[in-house]
């Protein structure tokens, strides 16, 4: 248990924050990997998810993709790609993007799909174009679930970027790998604490965002035990909907 005390002492020592590689540098690296790959994944998954959710076509594709992505051992996939493409930033980001897309896609799709048909039909009856329906009705109503997908994807990426410390030069995972290699448990716990704190902080921010985009006047219907009537009307299959946060690598 002494290791935890030593680890906190290590973290609180300002000398360890500066320098390359210091704590600040590694956190910055980790945020870079995460931000870059989630950003790119958003560019890919959101349009695709909106399309599939709005038209209702490609449902089974999303279900299949999510299941396959959940089953794929991400560590093996990472090492495989790095072996073929070399130790660099681009292959790492590429792998992280590939891992972030499925939960993000599922979240966007689920968000659109879970929107009650009534407002959509009403909007269509009012003469709104498909784009307007998407932008003014479906997205606002579906935003909480979409952010749920974003939370999932981000958590997945943070976790994978940690393990990527095995083949990457930067990121908080290096503390864990170095700690393991030297059996320096203090260093390993430093890595564990920092990466857990980072993940919790970012997940917390996204959770707050998820609450903020909850449209007023619409019950989320999932946090509380929902009535069976509402549950039956949800057409989004359980395998995508649950759990909200998933994919810890």
């Amino acid at each position, binding site marked *: 248990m002494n290791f935890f005390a030593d680890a906190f002492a290590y973290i609180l020592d300002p000398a360890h924050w500066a320098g390359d590689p210091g704590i600040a540098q590694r956190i910055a690296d980790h945020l870079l990997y995460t931000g870059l790959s989630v950003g790119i994944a958003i560019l890919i998954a959101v349009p695709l998810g909106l399309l599939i959710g709005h038209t209702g076509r490609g449902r089974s594709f999303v279900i299949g993709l999510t299941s396959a992505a*959940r089953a794929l051992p991400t560590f093996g996939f990472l090492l495989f790609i790095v072996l073929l493409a070399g130790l660099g930033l681009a292959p790492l980001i590429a792998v992280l993007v590939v891992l972030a897309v499925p939960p993000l896609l599922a979240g966007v799709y689920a968000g659109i799909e879970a929107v009650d048909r009534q407002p959509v039909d009403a909007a269509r009856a009012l003469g709104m174009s498909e784009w307007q329906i998407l932008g003014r009705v479906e997205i606002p109503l579906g935003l909480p679930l979409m952010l749920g997908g974003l939370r999932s994807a981000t958590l997945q990426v943070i976790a994978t970027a940690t393990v990527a410390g095995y083949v990457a030069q930067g990121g908080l995972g290096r503390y864990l790998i170095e700690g393991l290699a030297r059996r320096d448990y203090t260093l390993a716990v430093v890595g*564990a604490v920092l990466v857990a704190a980072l993940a919790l902080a970012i997940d917390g921010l996204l959770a707050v965002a998820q609450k903020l985009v909850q449209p007023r006047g619409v019950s989320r219907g999932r946090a509380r035990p929902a009535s069976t009537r509402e549950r039956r009307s949800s057409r989004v299959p359980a395998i995508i909907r649950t759990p909200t946060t998933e994919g*810890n690598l």
Partner: protein
Amino acid sequence: MVWLWNNLGLVLGLAAEHARLSAIPILVGFAASIPLGWVASRFAWLRGLLLTVFGIVFTIPSLALFVVMPLLLGTRILDDLNVIVALSLYAIAMMLRGAIDGFGSVSPDVLQSATAVGFAAASRFWTVQLPLAGPVLLANLRVVSVSTVSLLSVAALIGKGGLGYLFTNGYQRAFPEEIVIGIVFTLLIAAVFDIVLVLLGRLLLPWSRRAGRAA
């Protein structure tokens, strides 16, 4: 493929260990989440507490948890228990939300009817609530199963990763085929577990098939 043939013993041995080290956490996760989920679905304050605590556990990246496990448990470095406990915690965290949803989804009307008919609380749980929550529990269990099988391979970095050994070994030998074989066998184990769960579901929850809900 020649390599696979020549090293079949190694790969199958690793696959067996992988199956063993992932099956136990899945079972533990399921077993633990039933009482926890039921209790949490009844008491709102407990639900918040449990979800927060396990939410935190779940957010911790797996490598971090694997590494500190021996410290927390006081086990030997290569002890199976390190990996099993860590994966079990993740499994519970993943199942908890589903268990809460599952038990919460049982309509209060049905529960009241059961009481009216004469079920005591305990038998009401086993004969009414649990079966009705079954489909949701099963769907979540399938997710947990797949995720656990996949998550185990990370533990190769602490020497207990089952088929994950093929990943690090293949990487060190510049032998991508070995990594691919590791991935394929991991997927196979996940598929077998899933089939077993689906079959168990059909056996124990035959009505859910007719309702077409178990995806």
